[in-house]
């Protein structure tokens, strides 16, 4: 499904601020894989996701999605393969537009947009029932501006938008990090439900080790632009937070220095 070969990226090359964000990443995801990604700040997690999404071009290496080389494809063009939810709840939705309008734009991801009516009647009904599954009472607020929703509601809508048109790959960039703990766990439950119901291939970054262990069928840990731990199947199921910390120390040769990740 996703095949990354020797991906490298250095920001501000040739200056004192040069920072190697990705240092030769090799990663292959299979159909239906739900992979959680953990690592300290600056480990390269978001950089990896942004490289896949096409926010900028890598210095070296290739990215293939479903057999198509997207390494040099523009961000808006490769969007047809991808569903994305950002860390910032404000980033995934257009605040000055109605919920239905946001959804209708997402429903047409990857198709040529023409000069026909933007939202069909039947679509509104479909959106209503989809919004009802979020259990946030949004199904009656189709014409409501998204800017009036709370962060958690917006993130739930973004999740819906990312999956409305089945993506080949779902990219979740710490999408619950900016939410309060209760809302975060609700959005996470919702994520798990949508991913498992649709058998979506998913890459989810999280700061929370427990979440990383609880969700998905595979876990990768990054450090200094490299993947240092990659566990899946039975081994991942039996994983504990302590095991992860030991794995980290063994692989990187130092203590895991990130309170947020440990306590979470």
């Amino acid at each position, binding site marked *: 499904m996703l095949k990354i070969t020797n991906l490298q990226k250095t920001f501000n090359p040739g200056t004192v601020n040069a920072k190697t964000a990705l240092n030769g990443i090799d990663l292959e995801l299979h159909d239906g894989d739900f992979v959680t990604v953990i690592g300290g700040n600056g480990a390269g997690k978001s950089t990896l996701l942004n490289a896949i999404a096409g926010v900028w071009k890598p210095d070296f290496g290739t990215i293939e999605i479903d057999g198509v080389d997207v390494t040099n494809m523009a961000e*808006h063009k490769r*969007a047809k393969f*991808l569903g994305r939810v950002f860390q910032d709840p404000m980033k995934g939705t*257009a*605040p000055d537009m109605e919920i239905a309008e946001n959804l209708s734009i997402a429903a047409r*991801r990857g198709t040529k*947009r023409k000069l026909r009516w933007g939202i069909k009647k039947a679509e509104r009904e479909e959106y209503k029932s989809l919004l009802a599954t979020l259990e946030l009472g949004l199904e009656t607020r189709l014409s409501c501006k998204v800017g009036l929703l709370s962060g958690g509601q917006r993130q739930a809508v973004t999740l819906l938008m990312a999956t409305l048109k089945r993506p080949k790959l779902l990219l979740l960039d710490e999408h619950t990090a900016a939410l309060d703990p209760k809302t975060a766990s609700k959005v996470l439950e919702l994520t798990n439900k949508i991913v498992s119901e649709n058998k979506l291939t998913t890459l989810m970054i999280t700061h929370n080790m427990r979440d990383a262990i609880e969700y998905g069928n595979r876990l990768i840990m990054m450090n200094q632009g490299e993947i240092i731990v990659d566990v899946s199947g039975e081994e991942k199921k039996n994983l504990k937070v302590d095991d992860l910390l030991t794995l980290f120390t063994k692989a990187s040769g130092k203590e895991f220095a990130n309170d947020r990740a440990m306590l979470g």
Partner: protein
Amino acid sequence: MSFLNALPGAVAEGLIWGLMAIGVYISYKILDIADLTVDGSICTGACVCAVLITKGVPVPVCILLAFIAGALTGVVTGVFHTALGIPSILAGILTQLILYSVNLSILSGKSLISVYTYTDSLILHMSDNPHAVLAAGIIIAVVIVCLWLFFYTEFGLTLKSTGDNPDMSRAQGVNVNFNKVLGLAISNGIVALSGALLAQYKGSANINDGRGAIVIGLAAIFIGLSVSLKIKSNFVVSLIGVVGGGIVYYVIYNFVILLGLKTEFLKMLSAIIVVLFLAIPYLKKEYFSKKKSIKKVEEGK
């Protein structure tokens, strides 16, 4: 009494500037770009229309070509901004400067071209204000209906989202750069259309037409939206509000002239109106947020 006499003229001119403000609304409010091209493109519209009229081209064709010329100026700014990476404000200023030369060459180096001798064929002129109001009103109605239909199509919605949230738009497969160029083309096309009407209304195209136009457009938008948003936050209502803002602006304008304000201060007046409308919401917010934080501290005790 003289104020009432001036009223039909103020309404006619206000409608023309209201149409111009619709163009500014598309760049400023929908695309979220303060596009300074308009100072030049309104003049381009006036020059193209006037010159073609003196060449004997049918007036509707002149107006259409003025629209297209204006759209092209928007494309230039859009390409400067998106393909060449020039900040949008600077891109607009550069195009505006380019247009000064272009407009001069359209006028064959003269600073003014009169279409006064062609008054009979013009679709509106200041000598017949009621008729001018009707003609401008019809054109504005057609423009608003077209925009309303367009902005609710699949494609039109992505134009809205481009300005509202470019990150979200890209993630949903929207070609943000193309949309910005197209949006600027539509915006400046409409601005040039109003320039074409202005040249006919005044009976001439002047190389200095349109200096400070962006400020008048913004003033019309702020005046209009301050009322229309209280009624309904809806695209068509907003556009009608913006046109209304243009009329109110010109009524005020004529009123202060009658009060004896020297004409050299008129541009300053437009700027002050815009400053006030931008500053008041900001100051309000600052004031209220301060009060809130004080309250919180008190509650904390």
